[in-house]
């Protein structure tokens, strides 16, 4: 039995696959502050015998919440003398340019917990001021004993180029204070720019004891119940890692939830023959979108949490505050807006009847007719349309429109917010969304996907089955992955191809070792990224490579790939002004993945038959007659013309006019746009 458990802010989702075709799904409320209680409650609800589990994959917001609530471990920072305020000064800029009462993002380590040591390494790795290890160690250990520290982050200037001083200090601390968690910047994020590296290292150290305690507690509880299987944890880079390894690399445990959804979507639509996807996960408060090319999600070198940079490879997921609970409002200039404020799960949309007064996106769907009051979540939750209308009335009178018109405008505005998020990860990175299929999931995704696809010029939508538990399934579908990054400046000259190849091979060997240490062997898939720029630039353009490319690296081939990537991103590659400029490598990234042999989910059970009906809806500025039917009906009917509302127990799919719906042999719903319409 393989089990994936995803603990979200509101619900804990579980999916279990036995060796046959049986799928068990469970959804229980999460327990605030105790994600493991939610996970075990889900196991109990699904009646799963823990000693029968062979593979358990877990995703949790434990690390993310520790940072957002600043409830991580008491952590010290060791840094180069003269630079102790690095986490407080940050990059000196303001996130909100015109705000006068501005507040910087709070650092996770305070000023009194910073220890400066005398040493200086230069950009080329040369030691300018040697570390007096005896003196420094005495001073450091003395300081570390003063307060009940659980973790220490070490980030010295230019340690990416020469980690010797960081290593020496770490060794002394580990010898003297073996219970302290030690994180070194050269191990967490071996890249230049000291603030970003220090921030990443500090965050990693700050959450490490939390993750460690959490996993220990989880493992003990599993062991008590006879668990003998593999236990792994989801990472922000879209792959999983054994629970043991994640303890030394806690920074990758942040943002694992959205990454799991992407992994699930990729696996679930693969049998339908699609590998170029834009995943679109719309939940209650926000929407996550990610671009997947040839089955591989785009990886970004950096992300942020609560304004603090994290320099580590993560799935390039764009998030906007648009979800079913997003509140609709009019600003003081008269503009209609949707989100980012959300009514959340409590009180929730006005139509939930739990005291919510503000109009939300879900209320808008109900008023338009694209959600039916008695068919929400398979009819398990009755919605109050009168309450929804009442919530929209003030807006309608302020705008001089009917309630239905405002509701329709609301949905279109929410569409536009999602379109902009998708442009951020496609058009702005030089990728044409028309080369991709849209894969909507989450509660609200399949309702909005049609018009969003039209706006982007996308002609095909693949709605995966079991769209409601795709994130939990993604845990089981995720490969084991490890990443390595390095800053190393090499000019592009005749001798470089060899040097690049050697660097990447060294990184590959090191990744292999890490996988072996994690008990993983077998077929490994490698991917590489070269971070290149024109000499004098500060930001790098990423050029992806695979193992095959390594054998035919040449100066001209590398220069061409770089020019292509530069042109795609910046419209800046082809100009004659750049033709003569020198090119250099700044950094390298390598990943190794041990593929997990997990197929797509088997087709879901046949739902209870429901009558096919029609109803009037207001959609895209006009009233339309819309057929309401189930997936089963589509399955038997074949190609069905929109407008349709396809309802199942977890979500409603809206098929606009001009689109056709059918179910393919893999059980996924395919929406195809009729280009002649």
């Amino acid at each position, binding site marked *: 039995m393989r089990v994936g458990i995803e603990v979200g802010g509101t619900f804990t989702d579980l999916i279990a696959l036995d060796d046959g075709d049986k799928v068990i799904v469970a959804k229980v409320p999460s327990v605030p502050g105790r994600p493991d209680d939610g996970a075990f409650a889900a196991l109990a609800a699904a009646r799963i015998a823990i000693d029968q589990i062979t593979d358990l994959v877990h995703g949790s917001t434990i690390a993310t919440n520790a940072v957002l609530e600043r409830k991580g471990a008491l952590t010290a920072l060791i840094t180069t003398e003269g630079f102790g305020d690095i986490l407080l000064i940050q990059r*000196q*800029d303001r996130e909100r*340019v015109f705000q*006068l009462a*501005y507040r910087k993002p709070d650092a996770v380590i305070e000023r009194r917990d910073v220890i400066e040591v005398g040493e200086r390494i230069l950009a080329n790795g040369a030691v300018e001021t040697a570390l007096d290890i005896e003196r420094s160690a005495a001073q450091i250990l003395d300081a570390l004993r003063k307060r009940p520290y659980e973790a220490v982050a070490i980030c010295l200037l230019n340690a990416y180029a020469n980690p010797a001083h960081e290593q020496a200090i770490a060794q002394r601390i580990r010898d003297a204070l073996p219970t302290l968690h030690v994180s070194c910047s050269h191990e967490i994020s071996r890249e230049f720019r000291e603030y970003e590296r220090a921030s990443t290292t500090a965050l990693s150290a700050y959450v490490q004891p939390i993750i460690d305690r959490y996993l220990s507690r989880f493992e003990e509880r599993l062991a008590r119940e006879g668990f003998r299987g593999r236990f792994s944890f989801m990472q922000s880079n879209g792959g999983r890692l054994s629970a043991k390894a994640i303890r030394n690399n806690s920074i990758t445990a942040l943002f694992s939830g959205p990454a799991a959804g992407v992994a699930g979507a990729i696996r679930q639509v693969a049998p339908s023959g699609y590998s170029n996807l834009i995943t679109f996960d719309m939940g209650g408060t926000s929407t996550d979108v990610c671009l997947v090319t040839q089955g591989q999600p785009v990886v970004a070198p950096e992300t942020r949490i609560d304004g603090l940079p994290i320099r580590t490879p993560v799935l390039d997921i764009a998030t906007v505050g648009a979800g079913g609970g997003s509140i609709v409002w009019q600003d003081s*200039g008269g503009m209609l*807006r949707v989100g980012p404020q959300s009514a959340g799960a409590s009180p929730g949309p006005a139509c939930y009847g739990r005291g919510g007064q503000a109009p939300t996106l879900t209320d808008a769907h109900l008023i338009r007719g694209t959600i039916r009051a008695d068919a929400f979540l398979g009819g398990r939750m009755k919605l109050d349309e009168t309450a929804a209308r009442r919530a929209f009335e003030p807006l309608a009178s302020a705008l001089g429109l009917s309630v239905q018109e405002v509701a329709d405008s609301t949905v279109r505005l929410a569409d*536009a917010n999602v379109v902009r998020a998708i442009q951020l990860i496609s058009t702005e990175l030089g990728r044409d969304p028309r080369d991709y299929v849209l894969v909507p999931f989450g509660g609200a995704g399949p309702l909005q996907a049609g018009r969003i696809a039209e706006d982007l010029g996308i002609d095909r939508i693949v709605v995966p089955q079991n769209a409601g538990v795709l994130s939990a399934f993604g845990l089981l579908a995720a490969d084991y992955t490890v990443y390595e990054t390095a800053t190393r400046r090499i000019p592009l000259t005749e001798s470089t191809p060899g040097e690049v190849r050697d660097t990447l091979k060294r990184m590959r060997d090191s990744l292999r070792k890490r996988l072996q240490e994690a008990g993983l062997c077998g077929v490994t898939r490698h991917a590489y990224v070269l971070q290149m720029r024109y000499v004098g*630039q500060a930001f790098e353009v990423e050029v992806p490579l695979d193992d095959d490319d390594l054998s035919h690296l040449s100066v001209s081939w590398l220069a061409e790939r770089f020019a292509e990537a530069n042109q795609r991103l910046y419209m800046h590659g082809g*100009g004659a002004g750049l033709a003569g400029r020198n090119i250099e490598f700044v950094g390298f990234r390598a990943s190794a993945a041990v593929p997990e042999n997990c197929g797509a989910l088997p087709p879901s059970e046949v739902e209870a038959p429901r009558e096919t009906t029609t109803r009037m809806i207001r959609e895209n500025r006009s009233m339309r007659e819309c057929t309401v039917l189930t997936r089963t009906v589509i399955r038997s009917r074949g190609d069905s013309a929109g407008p349709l509302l396809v309802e199942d127990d977890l979500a409603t799919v809206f098929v606009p006019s001009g689109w056709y719906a059918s179910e393919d042999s893999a059980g996924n719903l395919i929406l195809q746009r009729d280009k002649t319409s």
Partner: protein
Amino acid sequence: MKLDPVDYAVISQALLAAAREMGTKLVRSAFSNIVREARDASCAILDAAGNIVAQAEMVPMQLGSMNTTLRACLDLYPAHTLCADDFLVNNHPFQGGQHLQDVFIFRPVVIDGRVIAFSGSTAHHLDLGGGSAGLNVAATDVYQEGLILPPMKFSLSRDWNGGIFERLVAANIRVPDQTLGDFNAQFASVAIGIERVGQLCRKYGTQAVEAAMAEFIDYSERRLREAIRAIPDGIYHGSDAGDDIERKGEPLWIHAKLTVSGDTIEIDFEGTCDQVARNINSPIASTQSAVMSCIKGALLGDDVPFNEGSFRPVTVKVPFGSILNPRPPAPVRARMLPCYRAWGAVMKALAKALPERAIAPGFDNTLVTCLAYQSSSGRYRVCLETFGGGFGASVGQDGADAVAAPLSNTTNSPVEAIDMNFDYFRIVEYGLNAESCGLGKYRGGLGIRRTYLILQDGVDFSLYGDRFEIAPDGLAGGSGGTTCRAELIRDGQAIEVDLKQGKRLMKGDRVVIRTSGGAGFGNPRDRNSDLIERDIDQGYIKAAVAAVTYR
């Protein structure tokens, strides 16, 4: 044309997104540390008449000049005479521009043979010639400050990429690799803006895009008028003073008279001091930018886009020949200094009208250092850095520590980036300037300390900045922040750096820069004791000082 409200919202937000994308990509493809690390650049989409529609909010100061520089070009080359391959360029301080280093470049968006918008960008260029590399603090007129590019029209395909304009610029600057690279980044960002506006026209129709641009401007105007209506009608005065760098015996006074009447504001700088012989003069466009940024910050914050509509309810009157509207050919390089004092004077006036919206004076200053070095081969290298400091405290919270001042939003250069790129100096200390803040119910933010160690003989060091003599003064009972300091340490002796001229440094010299902390707000006795304890515990203030002030 009647515009659907949703189409309007979508198009206007897409125009904003386009401007932001232009800004991000300009920075990411730039070459000089001042643009690529410090992000001293801005981008905008403007309508065919030169009205700002949407901007990437990067450096507030530059934003207010997008329209004036473009209009000066359009006076000579009306929009209907332009074709898609044309570009307009202008950096003239007396024809809509700011200082010479900010070069504004525009290209028309041509749809079906008609110009419907402009895509524009500006960047602070590292060196544009002039009396010395990077920064000529001793200039006595604008000609000594660098190459003047009056409003001009060129053809991109003919005149750049080896063409006459590029060769002319290249021949007049010291670090062409970086400067031309930054010009290329500007051209590329402008091309992105054209592409994005074109896409919107193809999708929604040109008319809808034009209508949305007009409505977006009206929208910002409505938001600002509404905010102004909330201020009680009346006349409010505010004054601020800059350092007496010319030793005239009194500080450089800026007086602002703010008249609020219904939904309009008039600001009159009558009585402000005359222009000066040094580079501390602000061209009128810069003064207007500073005033607009202050009003926007106090009244609207970040929620409302800063565009042409923001200017309409506000009239700015500045006497010709004053430090805020000098006669040509006054030198203007350090125009940010009087601009900040104009910002401060208006903020003090607003503090009387809207005490809950204003903040106490802070570092509010541009402090720029320039380290230039010419190697024995004749090659120049230039490093420009802009400093942050402490923000003033406000009615509800402490001022932010160590941030770029309100009219700017430039980042610091990572020490590791400097280590990688410059071998003639090194940063050996970078931290908070402890104990620099003013106290009060809320304290000001702390300034910054940064120390350069010089590694070669013959490094030319220069800087400009204000607040070396006059510290930020406290608001509503709070105490003032500290002044800035620049010290040269040679052979164990510390001497104050002379701001009036550059200094040739020797190997082993150290230059220590300390920037102002912000002033406090409110009576110190009302301060929460936990906050006092935290400040002492973290080493932000001294226990002895706290004991006296907070007793």
